[in-house]
């Protein structure tokens, strides 16, 4: 019990005040650091008897370098059994109580966790702790996993929508950094061995590089003592050298990656360029503008391409933001024959941001919309858990949430003009088109310098 009292002294309680006009505020939570450097986030939510817990480690595809896919494969292997439990017994125990287990990596962090009934807290937490601290890493299970994983890489290419973003990141950020592939490709994955997975786990999974995020129906005091007992002995260690991220430079010309899928019946495409980082102080204002452009049903893009022209089932735009940079893209799809018509219309509609700008009435509608749609984003324990995980993983704080309404309210048409000029890429747009190349190859050269690859290709050299 002594250790817990010591830890409690380090607790930094974060209370959020409810503002006078009742704007949405993130529910209060506790953030504290154990002696070994492990960060804990605890947020009690008692509406339903469920708990969502995630263990996050700051290592992702940006750290993979030549071993593309390693971070993702490592975290996926953590859930294949522990020192004391085979994979089959672990699966049995969690399934029996209806707990759902998840594990995944993205460009910058890896996480595993579970969602389960609060009455099972004392059964699930020790299992999660064992998965992270003493995974089984058994050769037979690794081999099975790898075989299936390699096949899944091939299967992903069956659907343009599941692979197009990776091509786009590669185009905007280059081969490394944020252009890295989270899943890896057939060749890189084929070369990854179990001992490399073990080394990766040993090097990066340290308490000083990790956080445990718990949201749901529990008692904080008691949760802290349990987490301390389970994770307090985890040994702190120095981290490997972090690579310097190569951030995207402003492109000197437009490039177009044409990905041939020979049985395609439609063309799927993204158009865009550099975006913003997660902690961008203007991200709320930028998101309101993007709502008008392509993030609601009446948005300009959806209205033009779907409602007026009937070219597609849906057209949208979005910013994908990471800790230090991000991208922006328009995305839609259309039947092969109307590819050029749809791309042209998407570009013309996008240019309205500069040519026409945003008027008072449109802005007022978008403001009401984003404010009205905000609270349901943070309704459940699992949504709040994901938010706290992102805050830790991408390094931003709740000011985004707590000042959201005020920031939305303060946006003016003049201000949108400045934000558009600064943050929406205008010159030298980048394009990825996935479709039947034979039928569109000749016509797409007008958009930029074309590189053509086949969807089955591993190696992509973009000039």
């Amino acid at each position, binding site marked *: 019990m002594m250790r817990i009292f010591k830890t409690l002294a380090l607790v930094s309680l974060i209370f959020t005040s409810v503002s006078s006009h009742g704007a949405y505020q993130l529910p209060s939570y506790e953030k504290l650091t154990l002696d070994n450097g492990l960060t804990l986030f605890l947020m009690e939510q008692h*509406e339903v008897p469920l708990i969502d817990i995630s263990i996050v480690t700051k290592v992702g595809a940006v750290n993979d370098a030549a071993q593309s896919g390693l971070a993702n494969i490592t975290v996926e292997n953590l859930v294949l059994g522990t020192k004391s439990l085979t994979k089959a017994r672990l699966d049995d125990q969690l*399934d*029996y109580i209806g707990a759902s287990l998840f594990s995944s990596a993205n460009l910058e962090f890896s996480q595993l966790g579970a969602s389960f009934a609060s009455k099972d807290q004392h059964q699930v937490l020790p299992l999660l702790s064992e998965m992270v601290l003493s995974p089984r890493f058994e050769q037979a299970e690794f081999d099975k996993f790898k*075989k299936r994983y*390699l096949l899944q890489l091939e299967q992903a290419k069956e659907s343009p929508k599941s692979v197009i973003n990776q091509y786009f990141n590669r185009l905007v950020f280059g081969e490394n950094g944020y252009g890295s592939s989270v899943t890896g490709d057939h060749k890189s994955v084929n070369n990854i061995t179990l001992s490399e997975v073990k080394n990766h786990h040993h090097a990066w999974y340290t308490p000083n590089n990790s956080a445990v995020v718990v949201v749901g129906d529990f*008692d904080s005091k008691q949760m802290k003592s349990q987490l301390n007992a389970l994770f307090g002995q985890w040994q702190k260690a120095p981290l490997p050298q972090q690579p310097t991220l190569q951030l995207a430079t402003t492109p000197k010309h437009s490039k177009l990656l044409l990905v041939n899928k020979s049985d395609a019946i*439609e063309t799927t495409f993204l158009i865009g360029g550099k975006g913003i980082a997660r902690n961008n102080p203007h991200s709320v204002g930028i998101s309101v503008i993007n709502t008008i452009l392509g993030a609601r049903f009446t948005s300009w893009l959806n209205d033009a391409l779907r409602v007026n022209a009937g070219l597609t089932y849906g057209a949208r735009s979005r910013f994908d933001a990471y800790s230090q940079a991000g991208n922006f893209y328009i995305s839609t799809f259309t039947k092969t024959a109307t590819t050029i018509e749809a791309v042209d219309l998407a570009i013309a509609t996008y240019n309205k941001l500069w040519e026409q700008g945003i008027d008072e009435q449109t802005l007022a*509608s978008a403001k009401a919309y984003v404010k009205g*749609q905000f609270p*349901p984003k943070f309704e459940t324990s699992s949504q709040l858990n994901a938010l706290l995980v992102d805050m830790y993983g991408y390094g931003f704080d709740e000011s985004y949430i707590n000042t959201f309404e005020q920031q939305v309210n303060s946006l003016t048409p003049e201000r949108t003009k400045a934000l558009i000029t600064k943050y929406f890429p205008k010159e030298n747009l980048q394009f990825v088109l996935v479709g039947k190349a034979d039928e569109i190859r000749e016509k797409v050269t007008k958009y930029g310098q074309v590189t053509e690859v086949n969807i089955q290709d591993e190696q992509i050299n973009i000039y």
Partner: protein
Amino acid sequence: MKLVWQTLLLISTLLAQQSHAATTVQDVNAFTLDNGMKIMVLEDSSIPNANMYVFWRVGSRNEYPGITGLSHFFEHMMFNGAKKYGPKMFDQTMEAAGGSNNAYTTENITVYSNWFPTSAMETIFALEADRIEHLAIDQKMLDSEREVVSSERTTGLENSNFRAIWEEVKGAAFRAHPYSWSVIGHASDIENWRLDDLKQYHKTYYAPNNAVVVIAGDVKVADVKKLALQYFAPIPAQPKPRAIHTVEPEQKGERRVYLQKESVTTPNIMMAYHVPNTQHEDHYALDILNSILATGKSSRLYNALISEQQLASDIFTYLPETIDANLFYLYGVAAKDVSAQTLEKAMIAEINRIIKSGVTEKELQKVKNQKMVEFYRTMSTINGKADTIGSYEIYFGDYQKLFTAPQSYNQVTNADIQRVAKTYLIKANRTVGILSAQKDSNDADL
């Protein structure tokens, strides 16, 4: 030390049980307007928002050849203008009030959902009432929307193997009942249905007596009642739509379909068995069997075919909620270098193992535990609550059955599971679909 721990545990467990407010049947306030529209309200102030789900008893089962896909198409047309709110105004008005919406169509129902800050509730009532009573179907909007729906159909087929083979399997499994075609419909029907078809459809099916409305969120029952009386009560009732009387004749031998698609990596297999509808007494046993087969990594199919024998790379089962007798689906994607035949045989072997030896008490208890957690997860959002309450009202005939579902699942025995497997999951009652990159032709066959 140990004693302290145990005490702490006990106290916290008790506290936890008292502190959360689980939804009960008394929390749902139901009433019916004079025109036959049934409305259910659930107050929940966890966020300052609310929703409105309007369930219409119309889906692809109400179609016939020539107008296949019309229910889904109609779902699109409901957003394209009425009397007070003309073309585009439905979405523009709703979004400017802070609301958003969506809709979905199934074989059985069409559901419209609106999500909004509570302050916008009256606007939502006004918008819904206008399009229910006065939808204005315009030829120009119809032509443009046809293209949108064609794109929706194409993008489904382009990106989903399941969608591609599902159409074929349904077509073979049903030769009489309208479940035969996909909800999105045949391409040639999408291209050719007429304005009159749509007008007739609206009059027949979009009558208040054919709807169930659920509102959940930060609202007061009295406020909802007031708005319902003002906006929905004046909409006139219509004659009850003609019942769908077609019963699919009993299948007496296996049917097989094959679909070639070049980009498919390894063969996909869909097996579909005819089963009774959701209100049939065997539903709960079939649903538990569904979970025992493929929910979680310890499930029968996942464990045997993916973990142990490594014959599949993906596996799942699907038992849709349904008004008429429908299908129980098994879906498997072959592992690398595994043939469709090998995977099919292994899937059938697992079914036969249950027919022969039943399931264990532990498996049965596992599913009951899983159902409980799923229930809590569904009830953790106002949308989960509204959608589930409405679905129960339609498929089980009474929303109150949602709250007795745990008991209904608890009553299912090992013998029930074995009996339903033996009754329904048999060869003569099965349609098998194979999706593969390989062309279904061989000159040597001729």
